[in-house]
């Protein structure tokens, strides 16, 4: 009687649960590998009347370590060659550096293909929309970056477009991104958009008149950017080392690198 052989291997009765999987059944499994990291740093962009300024610090961190003191975050996009001499768009990326570089290279090649096919550079407006779709294409495995796009619009006015990692975007007067965004943005609200600034003696309560919003001149904006980063460096450990500034005007793009505190 094989059925009562007392040995399931010798064709005896088998017991269902003997072969039940021993590993965790369903739901979330823990993976050791995390494909993302935060490389710190901060970016800032301000649009003026006939210019736009893009800025970022040059520190690249992982955890408490400084990987390098000079890793630029602001890039020229869409020039004819790799020298980017005739580029008309600026992109800043902050967050996960590897995704940032991948995104920058992708947008650059898209703009280069556009220039090759149409014989003219891509407009900032078109590039802004394209960047949004590039980000959204990776909606379920996003580029972990906060991107800001800058340039001059069709009227020659400064344009700044800011993005979240999955491609939501809007055109703004100014935007701070990255590790010290929450430190810099309120300062910008007050100094660029004159939030909470009123005309002295103009009234009481609701009668109080807001200060007129006017675009700032370029030299003032440059000082504002430097001040914003100097303050951020003081209070955020992931920000520092160098300040890279790109200024786009109708005459082209100018780059400046200023020192920041290295501590």
């Amino acid at each position: 009687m094989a059925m009562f052989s007392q040995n399931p291997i010798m064709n005896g009765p088998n017991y269902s649960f003997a072969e039940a999987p021993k590993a965790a059944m369903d739901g979330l499994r823990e993976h050791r590998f995390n494909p993302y990291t935060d490389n710190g740093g901060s970016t800032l962009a301000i649009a003026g009347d006939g210019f736009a300024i893009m800025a970022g610090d040059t520190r690249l961190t992982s955890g408490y370590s400084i990987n390098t003191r000079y890793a630029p975050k602001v890039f020229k996009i869409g020039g004819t060659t790799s020298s980017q001499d005739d580029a008309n768009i600026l992109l800043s990326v902050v967050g996960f550096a590897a995704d940032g570089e991948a995104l920058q290279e992708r947008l650059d090649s898209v703009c280069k293909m556009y220039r090759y096919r149409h014989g003219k550079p891509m407009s900032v407006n078109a590039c802004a929309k394209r960047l949004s779709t590039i980000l959204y294409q990776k909606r379920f495995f996003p580029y972990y970056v906060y991107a800001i796009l800058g340039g001059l619009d069709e009227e020659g006015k400064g344009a700044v477009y800011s993005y979240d990692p999955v491609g939501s975007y809007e055109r703004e007067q100014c935007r701070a991104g990255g590790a010290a965004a929450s430190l810099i943005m309120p300062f910008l609200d007050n100094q660029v958009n004159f939030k909470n600034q009123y005309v002295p003696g103009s009234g009481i309560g609701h009668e109080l008149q807001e200060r007129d919003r006017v675009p700032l001149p370029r030299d003032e904006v440059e000082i504002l950017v430097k001040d914003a980063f100097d303050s951020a460096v003081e209070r955020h450990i992931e920000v520092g080392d160098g300040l890279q500034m790109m200024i786009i005007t109708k005459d082209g793009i100018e780059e400046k690198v200023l020192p920041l505190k290295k501590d």
Partner: protein
Amino acid sequence: MDHRPQAWGRPRDDVYGAYDASYMNTNLPNQHTQSPIVTGTSVVAMKFKDGVVMAADNLASYGSLARFTDVKRLRTFADTSVIGFGGDVSDMQYLDRHLTELGIDEAYQSDVGGHNLNARNLHKYLSKLLYHRRSKFDPLWNHLLVAGMDEDDKPFLAAADLLGTTFTSPSLSTGFGSMLAQPIMRKYVPDEASVENITKEKAVEVIKECMKVLFYRDARSMDKYSLAIVTKDGVELSENKLENQSWAFADRIKGYGTQTV
């Protein structure tokens, strides 16, 4: 009668039919995420005015076991570049084979008979490979340093890690070295401008000092190491041993090192 307690109270297949085990299986796809097993520790490197010096010890650890003590973790590429591998050793060997193949292909395709890839090209290639693998959730668990000369025959040094993150600096190190060796090297080469003041002899001396500090303080290290000097004339690879070790301080250490009584 089955006397095995594991079977007591379980429904018998000959009575109830075999259990449909597919209910117990997950429908999730296979995941090939691993973690490093046999590992190499720090790689250190710094630029000098005519090139780059790099070093890494010869140990491959299996956890805390010093498993293989004669593993070369520096590899030359086409006699013009050096790659230092930190992290998983089997992934290092995979990359080594891959690079050998790449070197042969490049040598065939180029018309001058030599290769066309400089250190910058090689670093770009490796970082793309690493980023691609991390995006497939199947990373190569390494932290690489690539040293050589760029297209203008200027010293080139850059890092790439398992996530595809890349960066360059006058001095670089992986693993423990980023905490112990990097501060020593940054004293000599804080920025690109200061590289011009460093001679080859000075750079070798600093790197050897770093390897000494790492040997004394990194428990996953050993006193035998490879040292490579890259200049536009080629690569000098040598094997070194830390001589004149002094452990006289060891019997005075109490507790974790700060204890005095």
